[in-house]
């Protein structure tokens, strides 16, 4: 029997990418705790291992061995299903993100992207529209009024910001003329006005970038949009009743969402794996491929830092302010941006 190596490569890629993003989570958790500590003039984790580097390992062990009690009053099926959904949804988004340039080794093509989908960006929006279910079902199944309120808030918030996010994405599709992620990155690798400044969408579509950034924060339920958790009023929001690994799933899902949202912003607005002078378009050598993955990783890292920085700088919104921002500011702004983009295109 002949082995189809291309197929083996593709399958291996899916598994490696999944466990790759899984490994990023403890790094993110450590980064968050360390950065927040320095922002608050503390030292952060520094007891477990050198510089506290083994803290995530200790956290993982703790969440595995904690008493996993299911309160007697919960809906047991949904209670287990909800954290799973909250974890899997953001992970799936990563499947369509191109995180490097195509490599060709001995005739085998290695594309650093799990699935080069024709409708890549629509797939992302599709997953985003399902993203809220984990939280609302977690809140409902907990049979706790605070959890229910947290879940409801999360889902109403995600709904409100999904519209603006979709509209921001439409203006990106307009500039790329395609929904394929690779095409969206491709447009951004061209020079702007005949210079070496790349035509990144952050330069050509600044309004869409601002709108998308705000909605990205809202969709990940991070401060200043963390009303779903709102510890000061809702105890812990949708995960009040959760403990041990099921809680860890919500927790990891949140960091995974930060990671994939950063990766998405990099792909849509910051040129993806492209950086002028470092990566070349059309060069399928191994070196170029690795450099492009490195460039992508660096950009994502900077955005993740921005996410953390914001979280520990801004206070939480009030719910009416949240709704006002979503419906009365971001939505008209995004609509205006579409019309503006169309007029500028016609010119």
């Amino acid at each position: 029997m002949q082995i189809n190596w291309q197929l083996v490569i593709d399958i291996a890629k899916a598994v490696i990418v999944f466990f790759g993003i899984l490994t990023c989570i403890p790094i993110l958790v450590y980064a968050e705790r360390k950065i927040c500590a320095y922002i608050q003039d503390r030292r952060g984790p520094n007891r477990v291992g050198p510089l506290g580097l083994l803290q995530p390992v200790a956290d993982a062990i703790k969440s595995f061995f904690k008493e996993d009690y299911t309160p007697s009053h919960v809906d047991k099926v949904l209670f287990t299903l909800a954290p799973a959904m909250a974890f899997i949804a953001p992970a799936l988004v990563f499947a369509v993100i191109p995180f490097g340039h195509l490599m060709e080794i001995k005739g085998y093509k290695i594309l650093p992207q799990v699935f080069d989908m024709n409708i890549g960006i629509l797939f992302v929006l599709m997953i985003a529209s399902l993203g809220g279910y984990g939280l609302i079902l977690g809140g409902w199944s907990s049979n706790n009024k605070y959890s229910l309120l947290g879940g409801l808030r999360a889902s109403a918030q995600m709904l409100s910001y999904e519209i603006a996010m979709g509209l921001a994405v439409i203006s990106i599709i307009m500039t790329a003329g395609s929904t394929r992620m690779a095409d969206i990155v491709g447009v951004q690798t061209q020079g702007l006005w005949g210079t070496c400044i790349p035509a990144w969408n952050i330069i050509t579509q600044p309004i869409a970038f601002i709108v998308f950034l705000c909605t990205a924060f809202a969709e990940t339920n991070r401060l200043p949009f963390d009303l779903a958790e709102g510890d000061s009023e809702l105890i812990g929001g949708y995960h009040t009743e959760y403990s041990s690994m099921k809680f860890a799933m919500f927790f990891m899902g949140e960091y995974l969402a930060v990671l994939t949202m950063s990766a998405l912003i990099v792909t849509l607005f910051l040129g993806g794996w492209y950086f002028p002078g470092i990566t070349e378009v059309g060069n399928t050598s191994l070196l170029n491929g690795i450099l492009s993955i490195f460039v992508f990783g660096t950009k994502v890292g900077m955005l993740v830092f921005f996410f953390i920085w914001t979280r520990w700088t801004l206070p939480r919104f009030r719910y009416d302010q949240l709704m006002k921002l979503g419906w009365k500011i971001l939505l008209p702004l995004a609509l205006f941006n579409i019309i503006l983009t169309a007029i500028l295109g016609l010119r």
Partner: protein
Amino acid sequence: MPNVSNNTSQYLFNYTNVLLFLLAGIAFVFASIAFSRIMAWLLGHRKPDPIKQSTYECGELPVGTSFIRFNIRFYIVALIFIIFDVEVVALFPWAIIFKKSLALKGDAILMFAEMFVFVLILIVGLIYVWRKGDLQWVKTLGDKNVKDKE
């Protein structure tokens, strides 16, 4: 059965790819939840008692039932959301072909006009809900005496 189009076969490898990705996710989630349950059962202590099993409300005894009547605004937000979601979705095909239509000036202007009219009508809808105060979270429901803080 009629031929279900041949070009799915070219998707196939990638298709298995994304399914594999999904399966890896599902397997990971449930394996780790199961593992933690087994570990907690083997090594951890389990001391359920009625107080611990009851609803957590900051250590106080739970007040009332868990199912509260929540604000109807959540429902109205979901209603408005569906309407605008359909709008966003209807604009996707337009956005994709707009760039190609730019090659022909007359075509592009027609395309722009079609989108503009569509969006304009929906902006009227937005203005309607805005004026009616349905985008306002803190809103007077029937009671005219309470002025909005906003």
